[in-house]
């Protein structure tokens, strides 16, 4: 053995051999991007949502077929008018601190959610709830102001139940609970929390459901996506969701698997329909025809997306209008529609109307996300081909929303909606509704959307949303770009993940396990 080899061997043993620490087997390591606030009503924010789904089960949870299935509630009945939901709670459920779970906890949780001053971020999800009353210690009734079909789905979305006995005063100020010692009823409970580093959860021996298969779930705080990729490659993370752009580094790793899941999201360009330019539906339909969305899906998303129909994504299988004709890329059709709307190409190739006004607008995009920036440039290039001049303005997401979108001081912007597993879009596209920032207004769409949320009969609901999508094809509320697929990268030996987006999958954390080698 020569000198150099010996030296290298020494370094290797020093660094790699002794002292290499591996967490005990059956520990799942998941990346989150910031210190979580471990309190379900307070935080559907991206860094906290995964961990809260593990710690705090809700009354129901989405099944593998996306329908609400029993969780803390064993069963429920709905009154004929759709305004009363009565839940019978599971018996023998205990909080992580050993206290029994009861209907008082459910009432307490929803009293917090229904009080916007409590710091909750779920008020608008449940603004339809009039009151919550406990019937006995294991039964609770919700009174709704009007029939509301998405209600059960929303209960299984972010509305985890928190323990009434753990709070004295505002839940937002319970720092010790929220940051290091949360108490839930879920299959795993927090045993260690190091700010900025990680949160360790261990099996909850009192869990009411199937015995969890993993010993631990460790949520590691890794804000930078490239650092996440490096940790994945180094074997220090087991499950991460990535964007297509970050995938090249992990595709060749034999120990990793890439799963694609359709999730209820639609990415779109919103046009301000308060402006005369975007008021005519022909113009919005023409712009939809003029953008080569398949090229964006193939090029920007590298195929990890689905070609869109309307605003109801393909992930909502029962409600997606599969049979409607697709609006495919067609610049000729776009130009003829624009011609009918009074826009003609001048000698310079730029579209102009009779008074000489040119077809141009500014597109707002949030900065820092390569996929969305690339999409914006692709749209700009496509529209230039039909003589529409687009200026791209990248800015901080918070500033875009607060200073431009919400006060309607914009021409167009590129964003997305990330919805519960329900087709209800009344608040987004109903005339004058709170989230209708594109100022879309179509009376037929209004009545269909209103009927869709108020009808309890699944067949009638489905019909309403299919008709809504037919309306959208003629009078598009927004230019839907694509339905992205969530890309879950996991260690190949990690099994038991339900075929759901990672957020919903985490509602089933007791099912996850590592395949024995």
């Amino acid at each position, binding site marked *: 053995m020569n000198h150099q080899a010996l030296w290298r061997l020494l370094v290797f043993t020093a*660094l790699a051999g002794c002292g290499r620490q591996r967490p005990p087997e059956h*520990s799942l390591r998941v990346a989150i991007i910031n210190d979580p606030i471990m309190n379900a009503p307070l935080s559907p924010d991206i860094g906290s949502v995964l961990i809260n789904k593990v710690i705090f089960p809700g009354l129901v949870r989405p099944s593998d077929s996306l329908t609400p299935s029993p969780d803390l509630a064993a069963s429920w009945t709905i009154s004929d008018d759709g305004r009363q939901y009565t839940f019978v709670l599971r018996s023998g459920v205990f909080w992580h601190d050993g206290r029994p779970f009861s209907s008082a906890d459910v009432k307490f949780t929803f009293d917090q959610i229904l009080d916007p001053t409590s710091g909750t971020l779920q008020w*608008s999800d449940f603004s339809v709830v009039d009151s919550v009353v406990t019937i006995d210690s294991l039964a609770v009734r919700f009174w709704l102001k009007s029939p509301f079909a998405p209600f059960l789905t929303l209960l299984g979305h972010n509305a985890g139940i928190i323990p009434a006995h753990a709070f004295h005063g505002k839940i937002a100020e319970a720092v010790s609970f929220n940051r290091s010692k949360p108490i839930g009823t879920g299959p795993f409970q927090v045993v260690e929390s*190091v700010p*900025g580093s990680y949160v360790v959860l261990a099996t909850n021996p009192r869990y009411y459901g199937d015995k969890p298969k993993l010993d631990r779930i*460790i949520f590691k705080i890794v*804000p930078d996506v490239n650092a996440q990729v490096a940790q994945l490659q180094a074997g220090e993370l087991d499950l991460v969701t990535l964007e297509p752009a970050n995938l090249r580094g992990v595709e060749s790793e034999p120990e990793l698997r890439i799963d694609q899941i359709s999730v209820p999201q639609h990415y779109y360009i919103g046009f301000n329909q308060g402006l005369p330019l975007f008021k005519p539906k022909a113009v919005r339909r023409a712009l939809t025809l003029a953008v080569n969305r398949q090229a964006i899906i193939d090029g920007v998303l590298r195929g990890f997306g689905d070609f869109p129909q309307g605003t109801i994504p393909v992930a909502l299988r029962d409600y997606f209008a599969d049979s409607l004709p697709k609006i495919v890329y067609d610049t000729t059709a776009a130009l003829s529609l624009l011609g009918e709307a009074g826009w003609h190409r001048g000698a310079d190739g730029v579209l102009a109307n009779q008074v000489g006004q040119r077809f141009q607008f500014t597109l707002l995009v949030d900065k820092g996300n390569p996929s969305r920036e690339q999409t914006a440039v692709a749209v700009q290039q496509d529209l230039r081909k039909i003589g529409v001049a687009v200026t791209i303005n990248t800015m901080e*997401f918070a500033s875009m*929303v*607060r200073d431009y979108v919400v006060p309607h001081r914009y021409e167009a912007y590129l964003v997305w909606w990330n919805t519960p597993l329900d087709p209800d879009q009344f608040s987004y596209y109903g005339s004058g509704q709170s989230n209708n920032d594109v100022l879309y207004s179509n009376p037929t769409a209004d009545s269909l959307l209103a009927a869709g949320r108020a009808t309890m009969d699944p067949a009638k609901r489905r019909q309403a949303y299919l008709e809504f999508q037919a309306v959208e094809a003629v009078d598009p509320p927004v230019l839907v770009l694509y339905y992205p697929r969530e890309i879950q990268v996991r260690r190949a030996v990690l099994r038991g993940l339900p075929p759901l987006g990672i957020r919903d999958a985490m509602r089933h954390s007791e099912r996850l396990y590592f395949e024995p080698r």
Partner: protein
Amino acid sequence: MLRLLGARLLQGAIVLWIVTTATFVLIHAAPGGPAVLADPKLSAVERTAIEHQLGIDRPLPVQYLAWQSSMLRGDLGRSFLYQTPILETVLNRLPNTLLLVALALIAALALALPVGLYVGARPGTPIDRFVATANFTALAIPPFWFGIIALLIVAAQWHLLPAGGMMTPGVEISVIDRIRHLILPVAVLAFPIAAELIRFTRSAVREAWTAPHLAPAMARGLGARAVSRSHVLRNALLPILTVLGLQVPMLVGGAAVTETVFAWPGMGRLGVEAALGRDYPLVMGITVIVAATVVLTNLLLDLAYRWADPRVRTEG
């Protein structure tokens, strides 16, 4: 000495006041608002409730005075993002950054002093020229780039060292584990400082060798080694301390980049998150605490400076 200390502390307080006021003006002059308000799904009712809860519905002068007065009482407020007391949040992270910065300084000094002394005493030799060129190049490489490459090669490809974090979660805390997590970030942080220090040590040593008081010492028959130790080192130490003093504020902020690359739970990263999330109280809290740390460090360095050079002691 005590009077001097008092004067310096007073100056420090003024500096802190300027810094906090400037930060307050800066963050409120900027477009956008707290990230919790960025959710387009929030209704007007929720927006109003959140603004009230955060206290940002009050007029700016009122917010400023309220913040200044509670700061004087030692209360830095509550983070918008984390809903935790600022002082606790920052003090959780500060030791991690200080550990990184201190170890990086020590590592840089440990490398730079011997190398600098060695080549400084041999101006113009091939080894001197080699070190100078290496230094030049080292200073020209963006440090974060060096960090990413190190991370990808050493951790992701070779699996020699951990790819990030401060310790392996879920296991007993061990010193070796901590050290393994420290090696890469400390090396990346120390690398440019070492280059800078070698440059200064080299020229300081060169000048110290040509200092007039060395000739009598040599004439008294002291050997070159003894001269080097007692005279050259002490004289070279002054400019080195100065450079160190200049590096500290840069380091504390510059650690943000290293902390991001290595998922290190330090203050720099917290600062970036706070600024990105428009967490007003956290941004201001971090600025105050970082500035206070720097003021204190500079004070300590000042004292060290006085100790190293008796001539400065008389100056005020």
